[in-house]
Every structure is written in structure tokens, then in C-alpha cells.
């Protein structure tokens, strides 16, 4: 009897934990999208008020920016080791290479890729327009991701607990 109780508790705990982890993954995507928005905003500010070159600005951004800073970091690295001819190529490569390491989805990738198209190769006005466009698109993605999160987060959590309970009942 004692073993049965212990086993049920373990099953219940682990399934709830599984649910918790899945729900946490849901909130990761909106989080990363938001941090990406912040980084792009930072990029805009930096190029408007200091005329530093792209590599310098990206390096500073990558130091500030958590998980999504990796795109900026990789772009700089690719530019420095000469494996990309220009900034837009480096950005494209960086996005394709690192998207798997983030919680971002295919739609988000498309936005990032189109952001890279005119990276560094227009005047300030063009750069800012490009950044604003991407920021707007990201904002929409954040909304969608947020909705998704609300739906799925609680679902995964309760599914974890209830699934655990069901399993316990069946086993007993």
C-alpha cells in the first residue's frame, strides 16, 4: 500500500512537471520576440545618434541581448572571419544558422530575413524605415504568440496535473 501511494505521488509530480515545462516553452516565444523588438529599437537608437559602423553597433547589441542577441553576435563573427561578403548576407546566414536555438517560428524567421535585405546598405532614413517595418511586424507576432501562450500555457499545466491523476487512477 505504501509503495502504491509513493508511486502515485511520483507519477503525479512528474506529469505535472512535464506540463509545467511545456507551458514554460509557450511563454518563451513571446518573450524572445519582445527582446528582439528591444534589440532592434536599440539598433535604431545607436545608428541615429552615433554614426558607428554596423559591426560595432551589433557587437554592443549582442552584449545586451540575452538569447536573441545570438543573431547579432553571429553576424559580426561572419563578417569578421570573411565568410560573408556583406552585412545582409551575414545576417541571412546568421538567422538560418541560429533560429533553431531559439523558440522562434517560421513566420518570425521570414520577418528577420526580410529585415536583413537592406541591412547597412542604405542611408540612415532607409535603415530606420526598415527597422520600423520589422518592429511593426514583430509586434503583430508578439500579439499572436501571446494569445497562443494564454491558451496553451494553462492547458499544458492542467493537462499535466489531470493526466497524472488519470494515470494514477488507471494504475490503481
Amino acid at each position, binding site marked *: 500500500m505504501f509503495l502504491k501511494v509513493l508511486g502515485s505521488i511520483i507519477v503525479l509530480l512528474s506529469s505535472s512537471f512535464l506540463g509545467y515545462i511545456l507551458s514554460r516553452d509557450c511563454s518563451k516565444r513571446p518573450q524572445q520576440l519582445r527582446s528582439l523588438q528591444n534589440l532592434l529599437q536599440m539598433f535604431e537608437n545607436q545608428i541615429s545618434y552615433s554614426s558607428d559602423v554596423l559591426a560595432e553597433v551589433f557587437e554592443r547589441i549582442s552584449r545586451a541581448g540575452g538569447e536573441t542577441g545570438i543573431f547579432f553576435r553571429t553576424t559580426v563573427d561572419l563578417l569578421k572571419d570573411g565568410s560573408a561578403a556583406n552585412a545582409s548576407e551575414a545576417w541571412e546566414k546568421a538567422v538560418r544558422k541560429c533560429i533553431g536555438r531559439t523558440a522562434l517560428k517560421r513566420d518570425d524567421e521570414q520577418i528577420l530575413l526580410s529585415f536583413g535585405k537592406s541591412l547597412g546598405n*542604405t*542611408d540612415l532614413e532607409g535603415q530606420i524605415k526598415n527597422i520600423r517595418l520589422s518592429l511593426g511586424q514583430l509586434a503583430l507576432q508578439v500579439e499572436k504568440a501571446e494569445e497562443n501562450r494564454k491558451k496553451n500555457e494553462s492547458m499544458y499545466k492542467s493537462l499535466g496535473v489531470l493526466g497524472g491523476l488519470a494515470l494514477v487512477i488507471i494504475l490503481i
Partner: protein
Amino acid sequence: MCALSHKSGQSLIIISKQARTSNVPEPEYDRCGEPAMKENSDGKLSVKTMSSLRKDILPMISGRVAAAISGALIYGLEPLEEIRLRAEKPLVLQNWSREWFIGSDGLPSAKPAGSFIVTQEDIRTTLELMSENSIYAYQDEIKNGFITIRGGHRVGIAGRAVLDGESIKNIKDISGLNIRISNQIFGCSSKVLKYLIKNAADIYNTLIISPPQCGKTTILRDIARNISNGVPELGFKGVKVAIVDERSEIAAMLRGVPQNDVGLRTDVLDGCPKSIGMKMMIRSMSPKVIITDEIGNDGDREAVHSVLNAGIRIITTAHGYNISELKSRREVLMLLEDKVFERYIVLDDSDGPGTLSEVVDGTDMRVIWGSGRHVS
């Protein structure tokens, strides 16, 4: 005659071959941190040409074009003066003797027919590379029609101007780039220096007169470096020098760092109109000598006088073939009449750029050195 003709020795040619095979700029070539002037065994000052074509310029040019250039360089075209990229037109390399095209076989050729053609894409890529992928950061420079790249080389830009009211906001649809290679020639002023130096800590007010492309600015830069560092061979101690670099050609500042060596006691005011800049430097940097290029605009005379009134020496240049030609220019004529300059140094290119033609004492118009071609 003081010929500053450039030496292109054997070693240089070997390096070019490496550059061709590997297509990577040779790191050991160019710009060593050696002292600018060294004494030869016979006690004369040596002349050293330094240009950083492979290190600074070729990596900034679109790969296809850079490969063609470095391939053609093997055939002893150096030192180059200009590289011209025009959209859908042949690539042109200009050296001291003539202009060269690059034939379909990769050899330098004198005829444009069938030679290497630059595409619009090449120009775009080149500009991206030159601005370090940050055209937005170079917008102010592009607006003025040129950018300065590392090494002090200037790249002129032609294209379609975008206007914002009266002023130019940007240049787009870039159709032509002119890369002017700045060759620093260390020691090229050594023949001239002894006529400039009055005593251990003082120099004469000097006007350098030269036709275009005869090394005016190059010599002016070397003078600046020498009087700033001091010339032990002539017993001259270094003095504080201020350069007013209106066209960013003397020091070639890039983000606050002079790309050309202009001496250790030198301050540079970059991109400032001469007449304003000279007055500013008098107040702000307390120099002993002010150096500026191409005098002769309105207001320059007044500025020169305020320099002299402050007890500061001036060294400057003027376009012209001889002293009498300068008299047709009002602002310069007045300076001549005021007997502002104690030395006139006339250059020509009869024996390569920077050939010293004559030196004239400005106080009594006596020819101190030279061919006597001068008409007073």
C-alpha cells in the same frame, strides 16, 4: 633637380605574385612603424614611398575587380595614383606615366577595347565594403562627394544627387568611384626643408607653388611631419604644428585619427574652412606653425594676417606654374604684395611629381636655388 620618382623594386614584384595567387593582401608589406627618415651612409636623407594599396584598398574593392587589379599589378604598374570604377565602363588604373586598362588576358593594356568592364553591382559592393557595411554612417561624407578610407585614401563619388531644398541630402544610384591613392612619401621634403628653416626653433613663412598633380599636398604633409617631429640632421627642434585641413587631404582623418603621419606635435582641424579654421587654431591650440592647403579664397588674406599678428608662422600652397601666374589671383596677389611670405618654393613635374623647380626669397625676390626661370 630633386626627383621624387618612386622606386618599384624587385621585392615588390614578388609580393604582387603572392597576392595574385592567394588573393589575400600581403600583411608584411607596407606601413612599417619605422621612423620616417633615416640617414644613408653618405649622410643624405633617404626617400621612402609608402602606400598601402594591398592592405587598405584592395580589400575594400568588390572581389572580382580587386582580383583583376592585383593580377595586373604584377606587371609593375605601381605606384598607382588612381583607380577608377565607372558603371558599365572599363576599369581604369592611373599611374604616374599614363592610364591603363586591364585586357581580357589580365594584362595591363593601353587600349580600352575589350578590357575589363566594371558593373553597377561592383560599384555597389565596393561602396558597401568601403563604408564597412554602414552606408548610413558615412552619409555625411557621401553627401560631400567623397569618403576617406583607412590609410588616408580618398574615394570620390558620382551619382544622382538627392536634394533636400537647397542642400544635397544624399547621392544615390552611384555611377562612378574614383579611388585616389594617397602615397605618403617620407623624406620627399628633405631637399626643401633647409630653405624653410630659419634657426633651431623657427621657420620662414612659406608658399609652395605647384601645378596640380605635382605633389604639393604630399610635400606639405612631409613638411608638417618633419617640423613637428624635428629634423636632427638640420639641427631643428620640433615645434607645435596646427593643420587646417579643409579638404581632409593632408592628414586624412578617419573617425578622429589621422591616417597619414603628420608628426607628433601636430593638431588637425578637419573639414573646416581655412579662414575660420586658422583663427580657431590660433586661439585653441597655440601652435608655432599653421599649415594649410590651397590658399586663395575670399577671407584667406585676412586670416593669414591674423596668423602673422599672433606671431605664428604659416606654410601654405597655391595652384600655379610660377610666381608671376599667381598675380592674376586677387587674394594671392594681395598676400604677395603684403610680402607675407619669406620663401616661395616652386615645384613642377619635369622629373617626376614633386621636382623642385626653384626657391625664391620672398623679401627681395632673389632666386636662392633653381633654374632662374622665375619671372618677377
